[in-house]
């Protein structure tokens, strides 16, 4: 089967990867333009983009892309990211990242940390999109709603931004061999055995991957 090629396993399909990168790209772009809009010290970013006014519109446009990507990602990953009882144990042990553990429950497709990231992104993503929409035309809303939207937008950015950094680390140098999942879509079998053993087993049995 072409799925098993040179001892690698196809872990993502192209649609997933496109959605991921749309989400990540728009998020990153929003993050940087947002920082540029929020901090005068980051003025170089809007300057590169043709000024604050242009940056404002790019931020809004990118936010729209983010919103659609997020919606698609949610539909796509929500089942894989549904929590299960073992996740608690995984979290209790810090996923084995912080101290040595032997007792990690075997992960299906995504570990509890990834799920947590997903749900944070979904929740705060929804918040950031909604508050962003309100901020796009705050005059159409009661003033209290408009005011709190700004605070919520910033808070959501803070949360998503911070998780983004973690995600970036763990998806790249923190976990060698992971990055390919979102480039070629193929990871080594060994990687799969480490990170998603139950899924791999299911997959090998030919049962439907979900």
């Amino acid at each position: 089967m072409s799925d098993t090629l040179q001892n690698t396993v196809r872990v993502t399909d192209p649609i997933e990867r496109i959605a991921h990168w749309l989400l990540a790209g728009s998020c990153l772009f929003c993050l940087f333009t947002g920082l540029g809009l929020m901090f005068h010290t980051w003025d170089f970013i809007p300057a590169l983009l043709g000024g604050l006014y242009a940056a404002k519109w790019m931020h809004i446009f990118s936010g729209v892309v983010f919103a659609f990507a997020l919606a698609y990602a949610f539909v796509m990953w929500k089942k894989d990211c549904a929590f299960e009882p073992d996740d608690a144990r995984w979290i209790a042990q810090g996923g084995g990242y912080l101290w040595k553990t032997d007792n990690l429950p075997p992960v299906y497709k995504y570990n509890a940390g990834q799920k947590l990231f997903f749900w944070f992104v979904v929740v705060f993503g929804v918040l950031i999109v909604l508050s962003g929409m309100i901020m796009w035309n705050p005059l159409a809303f009661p003033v209290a709603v408009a005011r709190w939207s700004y605070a919520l937008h910033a808070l959501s950015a803070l949360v998503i931004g911070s998780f983004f950094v973690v995600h970036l680390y763990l998806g790249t140098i923190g976990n060698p061999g992971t990055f390919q999942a979102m480039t070629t879509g193929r990871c080594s079998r060994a990687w799969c055995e480490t990170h998603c053993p139950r899924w791999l087993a299911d997959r090998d049995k030919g049962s439907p991957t979900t």
Partner: protein
Amino acid sequence: MKKTEYVKLIDTTKCTACRGCQVACKQWNEMPALRTRNLGSYQNPPDLQWNTWTLIRFQEYANKNGDFKWLFRKDGCMHCTDAACIKVCPSGALYHTEFGTVGINQKLCIGCKACVSACPFDVPRFNQETEKVYKCDLCYDRLKDGQQPACVLSCPTGALTIGTKEAMIETAYQRLDQLDGKGVVYGDKFVGGTHVMYILSEDPAVYDKLPVKPRVPASVILWKNLFKPFTLIGMGAVAGMAALHYLIKGPHEVHENKEGGE
């Protein structure tokens, strides 16, 4: 440069609502007029607009004793020291001038409208066509030239005066004495002191659209004093921790049976 703070004092007990100020403002600032309708009040336009930076509010009011009064209040930018609009303005279009007033540079404004909702006095107004926000700048160019703002110059009755902050606060309280204490000085006790102050004949709560205890909204303080710095601090901290993790724990290696990858 030594900063001299100026305060415009609006003595509502002298205002006749002739609206000279309302027009003088438009004349000097070259703001057009829009078609309005009579909605059953002299107050027109009904509210501040992008082209109307100052507005006389007309209010018929009877106190507990049934004494009837027609209240006039000149509404417009209060020029806060602790100015929510400046706090939230991303572009630097809103700024504190050397007079302590809040200036606005429309060239910088990107039309984000953050100031519109942040303002505790509901003053800045957005123009859909130009995508800019407008409000009173207390005639910054006139002040710089030592001239009174257009509204103050036009005021027939001395209801509008301008001077240094200290002098005007003193004047305000002197006037209060003259009124046998039948009035309220409004503006010196919140948001760090405003650069527009009122002498009101009634309790502030009586007046339409006048906040009794105006302050920078909690949402703005949370946003700007907490979330904003923590966005960088948070991301920086997380990045730092990741780096530490990498250094201490190293990458999370996979037990490999075979070489993978391309």
